[in-house]
C-alpha cells in the first residue's frame, strides 16, 4: 500500500525526527496514541503507526505493536484497581463529577492524578519509563501488588503518559485501530508485503523480535510453520452500464447478499477471515469447527433461510446475518436461530496445492471436487448460472430481486486468482437499485477533506398523508452518490435552510426532495420508521419536486423482502 502525499500532522510531536534514546519512550508511545485519537483518515493513521515503528528501537516498538493489535493482557490490573487507587487520592464526589464530565475513566484518572512533588535536594528526578519497562512491571504484578505497582508508574509519567499507561494496563485502547490495520502499517513501515507479515506473524509472540529483525534488518524470515494465513481477496470491478461481455469468455455466478469470507485450515487449525483480513472465527465457531481438511477457500458467509435462492438450500436475508455479526461470544440459541454456512466460489489452496496461478475454470473444477468432501451443513457450492447469451443473463439478473440476490458476478474463465481489483478479470453486475423519493431532514458535517461540507444526509418519508398532518420519519442516512458539484449545492442548501443546530448536525426546513437509490430494505429498530435500507445513496436531487409529493413509508415497507 502506498500512502498519498500530504496530511502529515503531529509527527514532530512524536519526537520521531530526533534521536531514539530509550529514556521516556513511554511518552512517545503516548504521543502516538494521542495522534491516532485525533487523526480520522485511515492513511493518516497508517502513516503515524509506520513512522513510529520505524523510529522506535526494539523491544519498545514490539510492545507498542502488541498493544495496538490487542496482544497484551495484564490480568492483575482491573478497572476496580484503578478506581480504588483514585479513591485514596481524590475526593469521591470530585472524582464522580470529573468522570461524568470527561466520559472516560482512564482519561479522568490520568488528569486527576496528583503531580508528584518536585524532588528535593540533589536527588535526580525519576525518568519516564520505556514501554518495555512498563510491560515488564505490569506483567510482574499480582492482585496484591497491582495497586502499588500502578501508582509507582503513574508517578513517573505526565498526564498523556498516564493515559497511555492506563489504556495499556487495562487492555482497552478503543482508538479505532484494528489488528489488521496495525499489520498493514507494519508492512508499510518496512516496505514488505502485508501477506508476508500475516504469514510470519503467527507463531511469534510480543515483542516480535524476529519479525522486526526480518522486516527492518533483512534477517531471514521467521519460521511460521503450518498456520492458517489470510491471503488477500481478489476483487471485482462494477460492470459499466451498456457493456456486454461474451459469455464464452466469462462465467456467471450469483452475487449473494452476505459477507465475503476466507476459510483457512492449516496445521490443524481453522480460521474464518473477514474481507478486511480480521479473524472472525470466534463469531462463527460452527464454520471453524466444521473444516479439518487443509485448504484456503473463498466464499460468502450466509445464514440458512429461504429468501435468497428459494426454499431448498436457500439463504436468509442479510438482515438475518446481521444478527450474528460483531459478536465476540455466540449463544447456543443464536447459533441455532441463525445457522451460518459458507457458499463457496473459489479455491486458493487445496491440500497443499496452490491453485492461485491456475485459470478460474481449473480452480472451479478443483473446488467442485473438493467441496463435495466437506460438511454439507456448513459448506455448499455457489452454482454457475447456465446462461449462453448475455441478454439471457440480463433477464436472469432482472429476476434476482425476487430472489433477494444482489445481482450477478462475471469472472473471466482464464483469470488467475490475484490480490486486489484487476481490470478486465472479475465484474460485479448488481441488479438495478430500488428508488424512492425522500425528504432531507438533517445534515452533518463530514470529516477529512469534507470537514467543511455538510455531506452526511438523513432523510425521511411520510407516515401518512402529508396534507392530513402526517409527519416525516427518518428512514436512512447516506453520504455518497452525489458529484462534487452536487455536494456543493447540497451544502449550500443545508446552510440556507437550517432551522435548528445540534452540535455538528443541522436540521433543515424539510423542503428538499432527494431521490435515494438502495439495494434492499429491511425491518429495523435503528430508525423510528422501523425500516433500514442497504447501501442507500443520493441518486438525484429533486429540487423540482415539492416535499409533500415525496414517498410514504408504506411504499418503502412494501419493498421489504424479509
Amino acid at each position, binding site marked *: 500500500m502506498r500512502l498519498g502525499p500530504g496530511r502529515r500532522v503531529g509527527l514532530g510531536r512524536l519526537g520521531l525526527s530526533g534521536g531514539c534514546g530509550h529514556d521516556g519512550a513511554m511518552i512517545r508511545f503516548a504521543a502516538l496514541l494521542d495522534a491516532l485519537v485525533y487523526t480520522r483518515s485511515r492513511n493518516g493513521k497508517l502513516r503515524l503507526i509506520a513512522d513510529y515503528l520505524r523510529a522506535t528501537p526494539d523491544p519498545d516498538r514490539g510492545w507498542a505493536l502488541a498493544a495496538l493489535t490487542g496482544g497484551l493482557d495484564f490480568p492483575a490490573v482491573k478497572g476496580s484497581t484503578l478506581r480504588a487507587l483514585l479513591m485514596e487520592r481524590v475526593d469521591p464526589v470530585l472524582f464522580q*463529577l470529573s468522570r461524568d464530565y470527561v466520559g472516560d475513566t482512564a482519561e479522568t484518572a490520568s*488528569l486527576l492524578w496528583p503531580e508528584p512533588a518536585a524532588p528535593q535536594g540533589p536527588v535526580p528526578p525519576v525518568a519516564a519509563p520505556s514501554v518495555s519497562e512498563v510491560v515488564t512491571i505490569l506483567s510482574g504484578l499480582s492482585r496484591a501488588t497491582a495497586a502499588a505497582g500502578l501508582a509507582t508508574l503513574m508517578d513517573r509519567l505526565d498526564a498523556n503518559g498516564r493515559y497511555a499507561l492506563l489504556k495499556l494496563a487495562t487492555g482497552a485502547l478503543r482508538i479505532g485501530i484494528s489488528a489488521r490495520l496495525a499489520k498493514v502499517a507494519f508492512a508499510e513501515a518496512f516496505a514488505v508485503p502485508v501477506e508476508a507479515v500475516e504469514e510470519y506473524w503467527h507463531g511469534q509472540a510480543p515483542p516480535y523480535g524476529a519479525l522486526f529483525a526480518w522486516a527492518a534488518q533483512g534477517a531471514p524470515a521467521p519460521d511460521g510453520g503450518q498456520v492458517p494465513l489470510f491471503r488477500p481477496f481478489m476483487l471485482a470491478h462494477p460492470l459499466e452500464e451498456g457493456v456486454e461481455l461474451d459469455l464464452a469468455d466469462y462465467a456467471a455466478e450469483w452475487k449473494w447478499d452476505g459477507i465475503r469470507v476466507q476459510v483457512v485450515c492449516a496445521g490443524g487449525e481453522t480460521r474464518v477471515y473477514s474481507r478486511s483480513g480480521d479473524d472472525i472465527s470466534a463469531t462463527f465457531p460452527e464454520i471453524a469447527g466444521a473444516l479439518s481438511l487443509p485448504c484456503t477457500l473463498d466464499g460468502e458467509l450466509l445464514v440458512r433461510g429461504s429468501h435468497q435462492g428459494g426454499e431448498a438450500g436457500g439463504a436468509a436475508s442479510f438482515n438475518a446475518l446481521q444478527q450474528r455479526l460483531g459478536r465476540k461470544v455466540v449463544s447456543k440459541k443464536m447459533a441455532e436461530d441463525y445457522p451460518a454456512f459458507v457458499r463457496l466460489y473459489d479455491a486458493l489452496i487445496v491440500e497443499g496445492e496452490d491453485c492461485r496461478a491456475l485459470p478460474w475454470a481449473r480452480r472451479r473444477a478443483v473446488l467442485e471436487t473438493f467441496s463435495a468432501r466437506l460438511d454439507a451443513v456448513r459448506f455448499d457450492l455457489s452454482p454457475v448460472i447456465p446462461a449462453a447469451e448475455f441478454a439471457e443473463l440480463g433477464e436472469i439478473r432482472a429476476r434476482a430481486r425476487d430472489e433477494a440476490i444482489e445481482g450477478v458476478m462475471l469472472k473471466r474463465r482464464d483469470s488467475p486468482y490475484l490480490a486486489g481489483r484487476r481490470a478486465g478479470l472479475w465484474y460485479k453486475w448488481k441488479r438495478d437499485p430500488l428508488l424512492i423519493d425522500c425528504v432531507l431532514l438533517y445534515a452533518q458535517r463530514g470529516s477529512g477533506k469534507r*470537514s467543511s461540507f455538510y455531506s452526511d444526509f438523513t432523510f425521511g418519508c411520510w407516515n401518512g398523508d402529508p396534507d392530513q398532518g402526517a409527519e416525516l420519519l427518518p428512514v436512512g442516512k447516506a453520504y455518497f452518490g452525489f458529484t462534487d458539484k452536487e455536494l456543493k449545492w447540497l451544502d449550500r442548501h443545508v446552510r440556507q435552510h437550517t432551522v435548528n443546530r445540534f452540535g455538528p448536525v443541522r436540521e433543515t426546513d424539510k423542503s428538499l426532495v432527494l431521490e435515494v437509490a438502495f439495494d434492499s430494505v429491511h425491518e429495523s429498530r435503528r430508525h423510528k420508521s422501523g425500516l433500514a435500507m442497504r447501501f442507500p445513496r443520493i441518486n438525484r436531487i429533486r429540487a423540482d419536486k415539492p416535499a409533500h409529493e415525496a414517498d410514504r413509508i408504506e411504499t418503502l415497507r412494501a419493498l421489504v423482502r424479509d
Partner: protein
Amino acid sequence: MAAPFSWIRPHVHGLCIGPANAWIDPARPVERALVTHGHADHARGGHGEVIATRETLAIMALRYGRPGREVVAGYGESVSLPGGVRATFFPAGHVLGSAQILLEHGGERVVVTGDYKRRADPTCPPFEPVACDLFVTEATFGLPVFRHPPIKGEIGKLLEALAADPGRCVLVGAYALGKAQRLIAELRRAGWRAPVYLHGAMERMCRLYEELGVELGDLRLVADMPKAALAGQVVICPPSALNDRWTRRLPDPVTAMASGWMRIRQRARQRNVELPLVISDHADWDELTATIAEVNPAETWITHGREEALLRWCELNQRKARALALVGYEDEDD
C-alpha cells in the same frame, strides 16, 4: 445591623450593588454598569453609564459604539459611587483591560473577579490578589481534571506541526478577543517572525491591541493571499470558522484550536480538531483553589462554570461558599 453583604445582590442578570444603583457585568442594558472585561458575555451594549478600564472601554466602543457616559478606572484607581460605595479596579490577568473590582461599603470588602487567570500573559498585566471579606469568583474550569499545561509546550506543538509538513498551513481557532493576541504574542516570543495570517473577523481587535500598545508583529489578512502562499504559515480564525466553508481557501490546513477545553480528548474530537492546544485565559483548578486559599475570604461566591466541584472543594476545606445562578456567562470557546 444588616446581614453581611446585603448591599450586594446576585440577580439572574448579574450582580446588583443596591445603594449605588449599579450593576457588575449585567446581561441586559442598565443605567450604570461596572464592566470587568470586554468579552461579550460580560460586556453588553446599551448601558447609560459604563465604568471600566480604558482598554475595556475601547474594546466595548469597537463592538457596540460609545455608551451614554464613560468613566475610566485605571488599575489601582478608585471610583466613588452613590450610596457610599467605593469601587477600585485591579488587574485580573484574563485579557487586555480585564479587571477585578473591589467594592467597599459599610466596612465590608467585596472582590468580584470577573474572569481571571494566574499565568503570565504578554498581552496584559498579571492578576493581583486583593484581600477581601467576600470573594466572588468564576469557575469556568472548576473541575480537578483541568490543569492547563505550560503554554511554552503548546506553542512548541504548533511550531512542530508547521515544520512537519511545509505543504500545509496550521489553522488555529482562537477567541477573537484575548486568546488570538496572546497566541500571536507567544509565537513571537518563541521566535516566529513570519507574518501571521488572520481571518477577517480577527483584524479589528488585533489592530486595537496594537493601538493600545501590544506589539503583535507582521499581521496580514488571508483574504489578500493566494492559497499557495499560505503553505507553512500560521492562520488564526474564530473557533466558529474552523470547519466553515471559509477554510477551503487554505492549503490543506491542520485544524488546531487553542482552548482550555482541548484538555479533554472527546471535546477536541467533537470539533474535528487534529491539533489540540491547551491554552486558556481562565484559571485552571489549581489556580482557582490556590487563589481562594491565598485571598482567604470569609465567604466565597461562585458565579459561573462548573460551580458544583468548586463548592465541594470549599466544603472539604471548611470554607463558606455559595453558587450564584447567573445566566448567560458561558465560555464554550475559551
